[in-house]
C-alpha cells in the first residue's frame, strides 16, 4: 500500500513536470507564431502602402496636416479599432507615441524644422489585404508616413525631394507588436524604390 502510494506520488510529480514542459512549449510556440504573423503583417502593410503611394502623384498630399492629408484606401474607417487580443487601439494615442519615438532619434535637435512629423496613413485588419477569407490571421495593421529630415525645405508637410518614410506596425495576439520602417524614393522616371528597409526592434 505504502509503495503504491509512493509510486503514485512519483508518477504524479513526473506527470506534472511533463504538463509544465508541454504547456510552456505550447505557449512559446504560440508566441513565436504570433510574432511571425505580426512581422509578416507589418511587411505586407508596407507593401500595401507602397502600392498606394506609387499611384499618388505628389507625396505632399499624404504629408499635409490632418485632416487635409490624403490617406490610403486601406482604411477601415474607425478611430478606435479593436485589436486581435480584444483591446482597443487608440489610433490618435498611437500616432502621438510614434511621433515621440521618432523625436528621440530624428527630432528637432537633429533636423530642426525638417524633423519628421508622422501622419496616420492606413489602418485595417490584415484580412483586407488577403485575397480571400480562407486564411484568417488575428493581426491589425497601422501605417504612418512622414517626410524625411534631410530635404532642407523646412517644412515636414511638403515632400521636396521625392523621398519619404513609411512606418508600419502590426498588432497580434497576446500583445505581440512588430514594426517595419522603410524610406522610399521616387526616381525621375516615376519609379518608386525602397531606399532602406528595416525591422524595427
Amino acid at each position, binding site marked *: 500500500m505504502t*509503495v503504491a502510494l509512493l509510486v503514485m506520488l512519483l508518477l504524479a510529480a513526473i506527470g506534472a513536470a*511533463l504538463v509544465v514542459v508541454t504547456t510552456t512549449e505550447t505557449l512559446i510556440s504560440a508566441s513565436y507564431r504570433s510574432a511571425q504573423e505580426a512581422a509578416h503583417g507589418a511587411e505586407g502593410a508596407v507593401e500595401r502602402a507602397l502600392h498606394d503611394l506609387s499611384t499618388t502623384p505628389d507625396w505632399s498630399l499624404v504629408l499635409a496636416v490632418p485632416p487635409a492629408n490624403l490617406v490610403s484606401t486601406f482604411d477601415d474607417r474607425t478611430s478606435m479599432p479593436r485589436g486581435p487580443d480584444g483591446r482597443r487601439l487608440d489610433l490618435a494615442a498611437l500616432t502621438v507615441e510614434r511621433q515621440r519615438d521618432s523625436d528621440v532619434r530624428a527630432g528637432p535637435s537633429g*533636423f530642426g524644422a525638417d524633423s519628421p512629423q508622422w501622419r496616420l496613413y492606413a489602418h485595417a485588419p490584415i484580412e483586407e489585404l488577403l485575397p480571400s477569407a480562407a486564411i484568417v490571421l488575428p493581426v491589425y495593421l497601422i501605417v504612418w508616413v512622414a517626410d524625411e529630415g*534631410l530635404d532642407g525645405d523646412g517644412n515636414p508637410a511638403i515632400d521636396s525631394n521625392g523621398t519619404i518614410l513609411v512606418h508600419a506596425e502590426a498588432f497580434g495576439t497576446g500583445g505581440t507588436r512588430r514594426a517595419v*520602417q522603410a524610406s522610399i524614393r521616387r526616381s525621375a522616371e516615376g519609379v518608386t524604390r525602397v*531606399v532602406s*528597409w*528595416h*525591422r524595427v*526592434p
Partner: protein
Amino acid sequence: MSDEVKKREGGFTLIEILVALAILTIAAAPMLYVTAGAQRLAHSQSEAADLHQRARVIAEKIQRDIAMAGAGPPLDLPLGSLSAYIPAVIPARTGARSPDAALTAFDDRCSIVYVPDDGWSARLAVDMPDQSAGIAIDASIPGCPAAGLCGFTAGTRALILDTTVAGAGHDAFSVTALDAELAHGPPNPPLSKAYGAATARVMPIVQRVYHFDRAARRLMLYDGYQSDVPLVDNVVDARFEYFVDAAGGVGPRRIALTELIDGPVAGLPPNQFDRDLLRIRLMRVTLRLQAAADDVRGGGAWFARPGRSTSGYSLVPDVEVSFDVALRNARGGS
C-alpha cells in the same frame, strides 16, 4: 509474562521478512518500470523542447539579419541601399580576424552587412591624404547625432564607402580612437584606399558573419572585429544557398558558388568581389540540430550522430530547418 504476550512482542521471523520482501519486490517491479518509462519520457520531452527552442531562436535571428542585409541609412546614399554598391551577403568570412581571401566562396558561412535602423551617414570634412590617415567627419550636417563625433564613438563598427559607382571602394572598420577624426588603426586592416570628401560616406554598420564550426558542432557568430562566439550548440549541419532573378523574371534561380567567384570582379583589394553577388535576391538557409543529450538520440537516418538510446520512450530525432529569406533591400540596388 504470559506466553501470548511473549509471542506478540517477539517480532518477525527471518522467513516472514523474506517472504514480505519478495511480495513487495514483485508488486513494486511493474510500478518502477512504469515510473522509469515516465522519467525517460519527461527527460526526452525536455530535450525536444530545448531542441525546438534553439531552432526557433537561430531561425529568427538569421532570418532577421538576411532580411535587412544591404540596408543603407534611411537617407543620403545617392543610389539607395548599400546593396547598390557592395554585396549585402558574401559566402565567406569577412572581417579583421582570419578573413577568407577575396573571391572565395563556401556554403557553410555567410557574411551580412547592413546599417542599423537608427543608423545615419556622415560625410568627410576633407579628403583623406592617404589610406592610413584618420577620417575627418563633417559633424555640421543635419542629422548628425550629438554623441561622439557625429554619433561615432570608440568601438563603433563602421563602413566607409565610395558612392561613385558599385565597387568604387569600401572598407569596414571599428573606430579605435576618437579625437577630431575617426582612427582606424590595428587590429583593423589598412583601408583599401584614401577616400575623397566629395563621394565618400561613413556610416555605422552591423556586420554578422555566421559560420559553422563542424568540429565543435556549433554555429558561430563573428562581428567582423573581435567577438567570435558560439550562437547555438549541437548544430550538425549548416548550409547557405543563394538565388538571383532568373532570366525573363520567372522566379528566383539558384546560383552556384562557383558562379559567385568567377568574375567579373569589382572593388579594390582586399575587398574585391564578384559582381554576381550584387544580383542576389534570396537566400536559403538549412540548419540541422540535434538533441544535446546522447541518451535521447538513437541510430538511423533520423540522427546525424547516433546516440545510445534504444527506447522508443526517449528518442528525439534531429530537427532540420530550412527557410528562404528575400533580401528586402536588394530592390533598391542598381
